[in-house]
């Protein structure tokens, strides 16, 4: 999702440096490549135009991979310059050796497999690449696979040299570990989870305790890291087959499964212990429950039934509840309301996202509403977007915010409901995409508005007074 400016800059700098090197010193391919590797550590760094809109990164990534797919017709030597971590190129080039000279039927099919092994968002992407592939296949039947050495020995050697470099030793490079751990723990998602928990904490009607805030945020962050790591540990073969997830550390073999589990335990045990002992047992219990729900319920359910979306919504709703219970120590109505906001928000967010990933989900065997029950998918997204308006109105009733909140949040709630309605009626990629991007800014805005409209605390010194002052506050 969001990329820090310095990462993007290094990518651009690396690109310009590499280009300069390649122009001036052709024989320094080696240094160029190593420099490129240095700057291109993060596989998403080669999205040089990603800084245009950080929100669109996910889709830009797919678009860019398709651009690279169209680069197939280039001659083989040119491809050696490309970063070897670019899986899309490797895959395209390896298309040629999969052509089995014996079985002509599988020729076109194996091509299709490799070309479809890279499904972009749009299955409608024409087929200039397919036309190129057909041409390639005609010429490449002369260049056969490595098994029966043939005419062009140079390309085979070059190819072997390149394949040689693509094999890496499964050695843990300590310098890489922070980056690997960040990816394993889905650090950006964790940051958003901690933000929603912080919102829950801030909305609680108690004096703000910075130390408690920090400790509970840390504990929730660690719990989220654990859940994400275990999720990735379970899903290695599925992640390998989906574009969105194929660069994860376990898929790429940067660390072993045992290492990932150890990392998860190393985050989870201190995290939950911190929440239970330092904050309060209720928050610790909720943290452990959330980890369990995410890893043992949501992750397996993704492949078994569409109810995974509802379980996932509950998983997303628990962090703000945890923030509230961390602050107050008890599960109040306000906690459930904050959880309700996140719960309802999940549906337009996730349903819109999954709408454009239907092919990947189908091939990977994931049972998602968008694939199996498309009508329900749209209906549920619309229902919950409108439900957000209802929840915003409920906030002042439960004394969480003032009555200003439903009024000022009405514009953004109406807008997301409108987009959900359009998605419901049209059900197209563009409307799904619009709804998804709207949901990304809608939630932070909503939480921010709620925070600004937080109900000011009544003084606690005179408990006898509140019943008398109640009609006053209601009138104000």
């Amino acid at each position, binding site marked *: 999702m969001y990329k820090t400016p310095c990462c993007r800059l290094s990518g651009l700098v690396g690109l310009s440096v590499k280009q300069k090197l390649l122009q001036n010193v052709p024989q320094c391919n080696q240094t160029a490549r190593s420099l490129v590797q240095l700057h291109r550590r993060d596989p998403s760094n080669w999205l040089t135009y990603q800084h245009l809109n950080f929100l669109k990164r996910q889709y830009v990534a797919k678009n860019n991979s398709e651009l690279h797919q169209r680069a197939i017709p280039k001659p083989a030597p040119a491809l050696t310059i490309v970063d070897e971590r670019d*899986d899309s190129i*490797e*895959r395209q080039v*390896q*298309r040629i*050796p*999969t052509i089995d000279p014996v*079985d002509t039927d*599988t020729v076109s*099919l*194996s091509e*299709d*497999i*490799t070309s*479809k*092994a890279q499904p972009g968002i749009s*299955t*409608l*992407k*024409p*087929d*200039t690449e*397919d*036309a190129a592939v057909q041409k390639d296949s005609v010429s490449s039947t002369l260049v056969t*696979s*490595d*098994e029966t050495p043939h005419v062009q020995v140079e390309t085979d050697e070059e190819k*072997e040299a390149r*394949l*040689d470099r*693509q*094999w*890496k*030793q*499964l050695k843990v490079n300590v310098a890489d570990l922070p980056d690997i751990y960040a990816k394993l723990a889905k650090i950006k998602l964790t940051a958003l989870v901690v933000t929603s928990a912080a919102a829950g904490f801030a909305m609680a009607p108690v004096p703000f305790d910075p130390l408690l805030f920090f400790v509970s945020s840390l504990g929730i962050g660690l719990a989220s890291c654990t859940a994400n790591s275990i999720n990735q*540990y*379970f899903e290695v*073969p599925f992640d*390998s*087959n989906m574009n969105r997830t*194929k660069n994860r550390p376990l898929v*790429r*073999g940067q660390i072993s*499964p*045992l290492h990932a*589990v150890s990392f998860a335990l190393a985050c989870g045990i201190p995290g939950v212990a911190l929440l239970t002992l330092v904050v309060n047992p209720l928050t610790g219990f909720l943290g452990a429950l959330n980890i369990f729900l995410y890893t043992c319920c949501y992750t*397996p359910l993704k*492949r*078994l039934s569409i109810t995974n979306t509802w379980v996932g919504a509950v998983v997303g709703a628990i962090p703000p509840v945890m923030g509230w219970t961390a602050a107050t120590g008890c599960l109040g109505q306000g906690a459930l309301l904050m959880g309700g906001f996140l719960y309802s928000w999940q549906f337009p967010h996730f349903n819109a996202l999954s709408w454009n990933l*239907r*092919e990947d*989900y*189908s*091939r990977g*065997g994931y*049972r998602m509403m968008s*694939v*199996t029950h498309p009508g329900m998918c749209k209906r549920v997204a619309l229902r919950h977007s409108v439900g957000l308006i209802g929840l915003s109105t409920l906030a002042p009733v439960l004394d969480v915010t003032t009555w200003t909140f439903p009024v000022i949040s009405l514009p953004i709630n109406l807008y997301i409901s409108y987009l959900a309605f359009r998605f419901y009626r049209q*059900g*197209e990629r563009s409307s799904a995409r619009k709804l998804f991007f709207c949901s990304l800014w809608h939630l932070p805005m909503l939480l921010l508005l709620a925070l600004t409209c937080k109900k000011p605390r009544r003084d606690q010194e005179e408990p006898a007074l509140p019943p008398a002052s109640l009609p006053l506050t209601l009138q104000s």
Partner: protein
Amino acid sequence: MILLGFQSLKMWFSHFSKHSDPNEVQNSPYELLSLNQRSPYRPAVSSTHDWIGPPNPLSNLRPIVYRVPENESELEKRLRHLRQETEDWNHTFWTKQNFTFNKEKDAFIFSQLNSKGLTVRDEQGRRRALNSEEMAVFYKGFLDTNRIRHANYNKEWYRRNFTITLLMARVALKDIWRTVSERRRKNNGTPAT
């Protein structure tokens, strides 16, 4: 004739990759096809580290050449065999999955275009594609027909993953214990000399 060719190539690959056991005989055409379409180059077995390779074009899974340490214990051997077997099993499943998916997808597109009276390729020679709503029918059908198969694969994969990780943990603990006890023996040895 073709099968003999495949079998001999498979033997050559397994010899080249220096596995102590040859892969178990597999008769399914998907297995033969997939195992022979794997990366023709595999590095020599190292005694210190595993090698991990580029994603296979058919199954999108990365092959691993497992390390064979000197004085490999029974436990480590069991672990290595289980990992290799799981890798092969995974590779076969995903190759078949991707292959079937693409085949059925093409058949679906073909039949849909036929029912509309359109040819597979348009005037420019480019392949016609259906819009996402029409494709959604196919995606749903694919998931529904393969539901039990996917559920079984899931169960089996979780079971294997757990077993492998437990074995890895046991091997790691044994290693640590061995290092610690060796060091203790060395420390006990030096004051005596």
